[in-house]
């Protein structure tokens, strides 16, 4: 850009310079005639060249410093301009240059990105903090269940990693299978990016039909990492209450009876301390949900068991 402008600038410069020379000559003539009329008029012939010299020597430029006598001061100015005009344009533009402009834009863009990132992080921290609460947790809490391998499982077993808790039942017509497929996608996405930081858990709301064996066979269809949980009717009712899950299973169903169970369809993300972080609804895509989980994992300052 700058090089493109240069030739035209030169032309303009020389044109203006001629004008300013004339001006200078006139001024010199005038000043000379008023200040010391005699000596100067006689000792020096008055022509343009002397006028130029006298006017230019006031501008300490290296070119003239060489040909002419020494400049008045021995300290060189911080920036030497070739012509008066260059100095003038410099002065007009102030400290602006393309480097300064680039730096300005870069700094601006950088700060914008940083502030956006910080804002998103603060929002997440706020959600996590708000849900953490003080005293009794809003979502989550103590429970006692049996996992699909027949082992005891309590809220303590959720600690150490982030956990993704989903409630459902194996005889679920369409929503649970869809959501569990999404869960499998989230598990893979998070594992790929952050390693083994997530413990996915599926808690049955239908203990009468969902025994460990049924859970095992059912979950094998979705993801090997998902750990199925079941329990007695009372245990399941308690865990549903703790997680604020709507629980409608009747306590006395006949064996082999065909029924559906209403339940909430949220994924509950719990942090490595076992505290509720965020609920992820059905409207989230696998990628969006993975991002939510991943962002919380990345924010976590403490240790995550891998």
């Amino acid at each position, binding site marked *: 850009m700058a090089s493109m402008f240069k030739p035209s600038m030169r032309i303009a410069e020389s044109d203006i310079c001629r004008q300013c020379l004339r001006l200078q000559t006139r001024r010199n003539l005038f000043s000379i005639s008023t200040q010391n009329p005699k000596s100067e008029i006689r000792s020096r012939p008055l022509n343009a060249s002397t006028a130029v010299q006298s006017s230019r020597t006031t501008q300490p430029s290296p070119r003239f410093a060489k040909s002419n006598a020494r400049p008045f001061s021995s300290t060189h100015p911080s920036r030497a301009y070739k012509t008066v005009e260059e100095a003038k344009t410099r002065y007009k533009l102030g400290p602006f240059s393309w480097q300064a402009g680039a730096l300005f834009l870069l700094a601006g863009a950088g700060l914008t990105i940083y502030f956006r990132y910080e804002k998103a992080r603060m929002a997440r921290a*706020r959600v996590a903090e*708000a849900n953490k609460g003080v005293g009794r947790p809003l979502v989550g809490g103590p429970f006692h269940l049996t996992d699909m391998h027949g082992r005891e499982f309590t809220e303590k077993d959720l600690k150490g990693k982030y956990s993704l808790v989903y409630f459902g039942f194996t*005889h679920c017509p369409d929503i649970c*299978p869809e959501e569990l497929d999404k869960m499998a996608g989230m598990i893979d996405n998070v594992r790929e990016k952050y390693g083994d930081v997530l413990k996915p858990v599926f808690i049955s709301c239908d203990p009468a039909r969902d025994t460990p064996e*049924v859970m095992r066979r059912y979950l094998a269809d979705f993801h090997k990492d998902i750990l199925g949980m079941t329990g007695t009717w009372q245990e399941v009712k308690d865990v549903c209450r703790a997680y604020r899950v709507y629980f409608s299973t009747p306590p006395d169903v006949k064996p082999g*009876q*065909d029924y559906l169970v209403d339940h909430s369809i949220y994924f509950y993300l719990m942090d490595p301390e076992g505290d509720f972080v965020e609920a992820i*609804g059905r409207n989230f895509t696998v990628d*969006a949900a993975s991002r939510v989980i991943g962002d919380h994992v990345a924010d976590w300052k403490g240790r995550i068991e891998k």
Partner: protein
Amino acid sequence: MGWFSTTSPSTTSPEPSQDGGFIAPDRSARQQCWEGRDAFFQCLDRNNIVDSVKESDKAQKACAPELKAFEGACAESWVTYFKKRRVFEHQKEQTMKKLAAEGAQPLDPATAGSVNAAGAKGR
């Protein structure tokens, strides 16, 4: 595996597991059931029937083979559930259309109604 064969009625109870539970339909069984459902619903669409529970006689008359296949592939509770859900989905669609005609703007589905949004706002 009673409900996979189209001949057996849906009243057949599911397969019991060894530890006293009942085995749920697996992926292929679910797929089969959903296909039966979709075929039945396509038939209902062709005959302009929305609610196949209320208009069961009409549905039975117009789509008897599809209904039979549907009922054969899914548990009874699933059949009822899907029929009701169809009505619900239809009503939802109508409402959305009505709202769109009135110039309503849809919310961002990723954040609308999520706990995140509620949590961020409710302070």
